């Protein structure tokens, strides 16, 4: 179901007019009210009046996580605190968290967008929504909660943790929709197996999974284990929270960005230059309607690409590919940007190859070399050398097709790639630059 026909199916031409009007208003507001934005715009020599077309957005300075930290906690708010009705904060893995605020209207907008997102994922009024996203400073729990209520579904605000109790409640209340991180969804599936609960006895039909990167393989696994359709949702607290973009249940292929509220750009993370439609790069968002905590050209550090092709669901919003990498992981090898996610993509496309890999970069003389170590699973192992050599050559050729440079492939024993805290270290850069 399309929750908001007017905006979600608006012709692009009209949508762009709405975007421009909102962008101009936003730029004027932050320039007038937020000292750090004003200082950056002055330094870049750009005034609100310079934004005459959507393309002029590239004149505006970027906003980074460091800018938000430097103005911790409320320095980037656009309205006085008495107009702020709620704050959330993102977990700071390094340094201080970033704090975001919402006016009453922001909360309403968020609920509207989250209702759109849930409807886009196939959730309906008569659904029993089992919301296992964490409630608290994290935006996931409350963000999804308000959207599900707005949609008119019944919400079970169970939050995360205590998996056995979650499953008992699923059985007793008849949960039909599961909202969770994909890894927690798999954890619930394992707990179900431990408890001897047959997934067919549950009423689950849709899972809305996000807040962490997950692969297509993981989608297949969770769909099989939980007997539901797994839909991808994207959001980040700096931009709003969950509900920035959402996969439609019809296509299950790329997430529609709610472009009447968020203006997306894809840039080259090195040069900052906008990239043409379809190319992979860093995702940048400008919030067009937020009041308390808008962002101008916020660099998400997420790597993705956008598609403008029309979608079977009828929405006119562009789609973004599943986020598979972070700019922090980006490597520059002989002048070419390489993301570990691209290598992973190649490996996952070869039947039987497990996406357990490590990239080792060295500098020999003046030349950078990249070695990709791939664990050999029993599915691809053979007693014949030529078979393994053919596998190496195929991986090498496909990587070359994708990134344009040749790397060395080294087949290694399973589990030989070091894993720290359950996560593999993907890149070892031995270059001394």
């Amino acid at each position, binding site marked *: 179901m399309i929750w908001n026909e007017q905006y979600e199916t608006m012709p692009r031409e009209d949508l762009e007019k709405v975007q421009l009007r909102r962008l101009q208003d936003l730029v004027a507001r932050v320039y007038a009210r937020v000292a750090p934005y004003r200082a950056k715009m002055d330094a870049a020599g750009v005034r609100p009046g310079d934004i005459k077309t959507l393309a002029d957005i590239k004149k505006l300075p970027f906003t980074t996580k460091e800018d938000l930290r430097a103005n911790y906690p409320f320095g980037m708010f656009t309205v006085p605190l008495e107009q702020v009705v709620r704050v959330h904060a993102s977990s700071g893995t390094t340094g201080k968290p970033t704090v975001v605020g919402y006016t009453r209207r922001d909360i309403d907008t968020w609920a509207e967008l989250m209702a759109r997102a849930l409807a886009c994922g196939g959730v309906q009024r008569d659904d029993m929504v089992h919301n296992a996203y964490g409630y608290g400073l994290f935006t996931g729990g409350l963000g999804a909660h308000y959207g599900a209520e707005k949609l008119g579904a019944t919400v079970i605000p169970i939050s995360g943790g205590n998996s056995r109790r979650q499953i008992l409640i699923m059985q007793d209340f008849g949960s039909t929709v599961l909202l969770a991180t994909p890894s927690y969804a798999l954890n619930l599936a394992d707990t179900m197996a431990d408890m001897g609960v047959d997934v067919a006895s549950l009423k689950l039909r849709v899972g809305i999974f996000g807040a962490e990167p997950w692969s297509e393989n993981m989608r297949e696994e969770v769909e099989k284990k939980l007997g539901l359709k797994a839909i991808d949702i994207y959001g980040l607290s700096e931009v709003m929270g969950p509900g920035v973009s959402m996969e439609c249940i019809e296509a299950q292929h790329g997430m529609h960005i709610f472009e009447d509220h968020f203006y997306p750009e894809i840039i080259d993370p090195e040069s900052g230059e906008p990239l043409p439609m379809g190319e992979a790069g860093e995702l940048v968002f400008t919030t067009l309607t937020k009041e308390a905590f808008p962002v101008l050209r916020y660099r998400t550090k997420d790597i993705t690409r956008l598609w403008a092709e029309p979608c079977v669901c009828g929405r006119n919003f562009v789609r973004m590919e599943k986020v598979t990498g972070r700019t922090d992981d980006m490597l520059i090898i002989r002048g070419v940007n390489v993301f570990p996610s691209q290598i992973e993509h190649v490996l996952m496309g070869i039947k039987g190859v497990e996406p357990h890999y490590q990239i080792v970069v060295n500098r020999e003389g003046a030349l950078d070399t990249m070695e990709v170590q791939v664990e050999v699973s029993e599915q691809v*192992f*053979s007693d014949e050398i030529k078979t393994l050599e053919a596998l190496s050559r195929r991986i090498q050729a496909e990587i070359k097709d994708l990134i344009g440079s040749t790397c060395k492939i080294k087949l290694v024993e399973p589990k030989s790639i070091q894993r720290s805290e359950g996560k593999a270290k993907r890149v070892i850069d031995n270059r001394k630059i």
Partner: protein
Amino acid sequence: MAEMKVEQIAVFLENKSGRLAEIADVLAANNINIRALAVADTADFGILRLIVNDTARAVQALRTAGFTVTKASVVAVEVADRPGGLAEVLKVVSGAWLNVEYMYAFVEKSGQNAAIIFRFDEPNKAISILQQAGFKILTNEEVCRL
């Protein structure tokens, strides 16, 4: 009819020192005897090929120890342990255009004869051609008893 093909185990080896010894340890700890063994390697990796007295248990033990293992059917041909013994077999093999992926040898304990292990593309065809040429094909049981 006795199974003419012999079961062989192949183990993936990264070219790291000590891995061969670890495999030998795993097999010894499980009381498995190695009947024949050959290592093939490239600059980057190696494949250890093994014939043992209990293939199923060996595969299980090696997997448990974290090795990548696969099984293949090979053909064990007895050759006279004297000059020219091997050449006679190879003449038949090449004369019949049999495609050999790889081969290695082992000597029977009795010291009378040697056996050559062949990995053929088409093992059944190879067995009948070699038998017709008068060579003795060792069965899985015979190899395990050696």
